[in-house]
């Protein structure tokens, strides 16, 4: 039942599976403009509302060394002036039209969106296309907005021991890949971000051939095509767009462990992470098996870990497993165990490893697998009630180099997963020797 609040943020990042994997009966169209910009339209004519999203295939993992946080910093700066608009005018115009706008940055993408009455779509495209090429930043913008992102880091990370542990865990997990650097940036590098850092990232990555337009709601694909050609189609492609060449992780030969102590910790817990393969274009089978494995092991009251650690024994107050399949490069498979009162972190960790060993012996419960697949099918019905989340899924997948076909195949790939696939994936990924284990502890007393 309860999710302890400390994990709310974590759960939001690792999207739960019940969020839906829709395709059946989805009204989705896709086309590409001549300059290379991808366009996806998700129709839902039940209410006169539209959402425009523009996704750039550029995130924190694309940042140059020493400038961590610049992708997110630039995201903030895109709300400042352009040749045609004053600083703040973009959002003010959206608001004055009764709309909402915002943006978000991840490891592999940066996205901007507006939700507004359907008849305002053209205005949104005019403004969004404008800031794809025409931002005009001042030194004053840099100074104040850098303070804002530092306060954002304070709020999200410095004030939150769980977030600080996560940051250290990621850094330990990724020895040689930028996923080890926090999206918001290391504080000392954020403090030095300047105009050149921001503009250099902008010039390199913000162009139509590196972007995906996703429009959802009360729109016709043809209408979107005409508007998209008018506003985005006229922007020339960037011929110098770099390939997304990322460094790879070396094989992990040694278990990594860390302990983070903080006087602000009220509830100690164990966090475990394993490097895991992600969804790849045309090759999603392994990721599908891992997605279902996470559900089987730690997806709630009926999961294997809950059974072993919360019901059969009362070692844990809370257990969970997460797997984030949507990623450009190697991702992670994670566990959280919150020990019950009087149980040490070592005992909790031992119980986790014992349960995982037990799972290797007993294998997949066929009935549980059936129930999970049933829910996958149902989630396709529920997803039709939320066109924006469907739009979000397409934007994210395309920003990771997947295709529309991959997104539409995904439910079928999940459906085809067998118990044997799941056990094989578990065997490959859940190798203690290639894991990172973190203990979040109170400062005052060792356990």
């Amino acid at each position: 039942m309860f999710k302890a609040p400390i994990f709310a943020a974590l759960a939001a990042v690792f999207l739960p599976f019940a969020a839906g994997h829709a395709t059946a009966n989805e009204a989705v169209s896709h086309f590409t403009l001549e300059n290379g910009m991808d366009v996806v339209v998700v129709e839902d004519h039940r209410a006169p509302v539209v959402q425009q999203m523009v996704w750039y295939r550029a995130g924190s993992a694309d940042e140059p060394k020493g400038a961590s946080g610049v992708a997110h910093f630039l995201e903030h700066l895109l709300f400042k002036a352009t040749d045609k608009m004053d600083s703040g005018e973009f959002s003010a115009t959206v608001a004055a039209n009764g709309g909402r706008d915002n943006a978000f940055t991840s490891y592999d993408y940066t996205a901007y969106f507006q939700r507004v009455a359907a008849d305002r779509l053209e205005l949104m495209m005019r403004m969004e296309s404008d800031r794809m090429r025409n931002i005009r930043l001042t030194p004053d913008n840099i100074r104040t907005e850098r303070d804002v992102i530092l306060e954002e880091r304070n709020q999200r990370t410095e004030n939150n021991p769980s977030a600080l542990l996560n940051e250290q865990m990621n850094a330990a997990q990724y020895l040689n890949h930028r996923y080890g650097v926090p999206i918001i940036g290391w504080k000392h590098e954020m403090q030095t971000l300047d105009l050149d850092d921001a503009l250099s990232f902008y010039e390199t990555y913000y162009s139509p051939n590196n972007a995906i337009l996703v429009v959802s709601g009360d729109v016709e694909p043809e209408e979107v095509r005409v508007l998209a050609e008018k506003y985005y189609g006229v922007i020339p492609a960037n011929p110098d767009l770099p390939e997304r060449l990322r460094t790879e992780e070396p094989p992990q030969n040694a278990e990594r462990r860390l302990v983070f102590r903080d006087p602000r910790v009220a509830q100690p817990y164990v966090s475990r992470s394993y490097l895991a393969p992600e969804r790849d274009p045309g090759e999603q089978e392994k990721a599908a098996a891992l997605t279902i494995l996470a559900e089987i092991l730690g997806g709630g009251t009926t999961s294997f870990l809950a059974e072993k650690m919360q019901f059969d024994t009362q070692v844990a107050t809370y257990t969970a497993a997460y797997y984030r399949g949507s990623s450009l490069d190697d991702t992670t498979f994670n566990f959280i165990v919150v020990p019950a009162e009087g149980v040490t972190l070592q005992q909790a960790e031992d119980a986790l490893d014992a349960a995982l060993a037990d799972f290797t012996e007993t294998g997949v419960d066929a009935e549980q697998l059936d129930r999970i697949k049933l829910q996958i099918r149902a989630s396709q019905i529920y997803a039709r009630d939320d066109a924006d989340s469907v739009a979000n899924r397409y934007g994210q997948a395309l920003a990771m180099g997947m295709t529309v076909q991959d997104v539409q195949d995904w439910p079928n790939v999940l459906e085809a997963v067998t118990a044997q696939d799941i056990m094989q994936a578990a065997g490959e990924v859940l190798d203690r020797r290639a894991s990172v284990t973190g203990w979040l502890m109170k400062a005052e007393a060792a356990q």
Partner: protein
Amino acid sequence: MRLIFALILTALASLPARAEVDIQSVTSPGGLTAWLVEEPSIPFVALEIRFRGGASLDRPGKRGAVNLMTALLEEGAGDMDARAFARGAEVIAASYDFDASNDAVAISTRFLTENRAASVALLKAALQKPRFDEEAIERVRRQVLSIIQSDQKDPDDIASQTFNQIAYGDHPYGSSLNGTLESVAALTRDDLLAAHSDVLARDRIYIGAVGDITPEELGALVDDLLGDLPATGADMPRMAEVTIPPGVTVVDFATPQSVAIFGQKGIKQDDPDFFAATILNHVIGGGSFESRLMSEVREKRGLTYGVYSYLVPRDLAEVYMGNVSSANDRIAQAIAVIREEWDKAAAEGITSQELQDAKTYITGAYPLRFDGNGPIANILVGMQMIGLPIDYIPTRNDKVEAVTLEDVTRVAGELLDPEGLHFVVVGQPVGVESTGN
């Protein structure tokens, strides 16, 4: 070019999207009222049920009982233990969310048309035959205790609990509905049974349904689901007396960024001036990037990631609150700027341009709320609980449009209380001290 945008804007602004929501009032054969929006295009129903009173009905000394009772509804019912219940929900792909607040216990569900009967049967067992097994009580009690411990070390929770204590004293609003470590540890199975019969009664039910179901089917469904609940529950809780003193309360907590919550007296939702106050708040700190607080504290000075103000009209009291977070050495400046803005708005009100912008935003944003069966079911219940008429939705924006600049100026003078604005600051703020209230 900015001028062209402005022209387009004016032309479009006169035509905000309209929310087309056709609500029917359904009276079941057994006499329960439900509001329904039929939406047969997707084969499922979102059903929202609320019991007024919620955690404010905790009996004296039993703080946390309603919350624990609500959490246990899905932890075993009828002949099912917790895991059997969860498996039962998975097999029919239904979802049930049970949530206690200080104004209501809310049950949010969605279920497929093909599994409607089984979905209702499962929910009926949870509402009417919860088992409150000792094993489940202890397991969930441990989770609640863990949450209470975590809240005690979380600056946001410390700030809001401190503020609530100051504002509402010993009224239930003045304490966390989770209860305290002591009160939760002492709760017995009998306390949970008492909380169940206090809250889950027919005289305080509000129902909203949206989706693939007819009025006749819904009438029969609610009778089947809720008809056997007791007719009456506990007396409704008393109104809270809001006593917010002026000044500052600092709670020392070693963390780099101070969290501040501020507040003063509020305004009731059924007050004729509520829309004028809504517009005023939108301009001051109502959540958009353009609010005065965001502009002054964040955009111009970079003192925070976010600063907001909000009217909080609840069943038993109303306050006007806000929050901001800034590094310990910058929070004093953030507070000073907020106080200046409070002064300025109280003295001068807002400009006619701000009034116009706020109206276009508030009227234009209204239809965006109706985005899906679940959110609409929520709105239907909310409307019933605050006593709005069933034909309210198409008239709401006219009420916003009718507010004049004089209205807002007058309400700003009456509502805003710069002297009475109290700040609770959690952290190690530099240059901010408690005023000793």
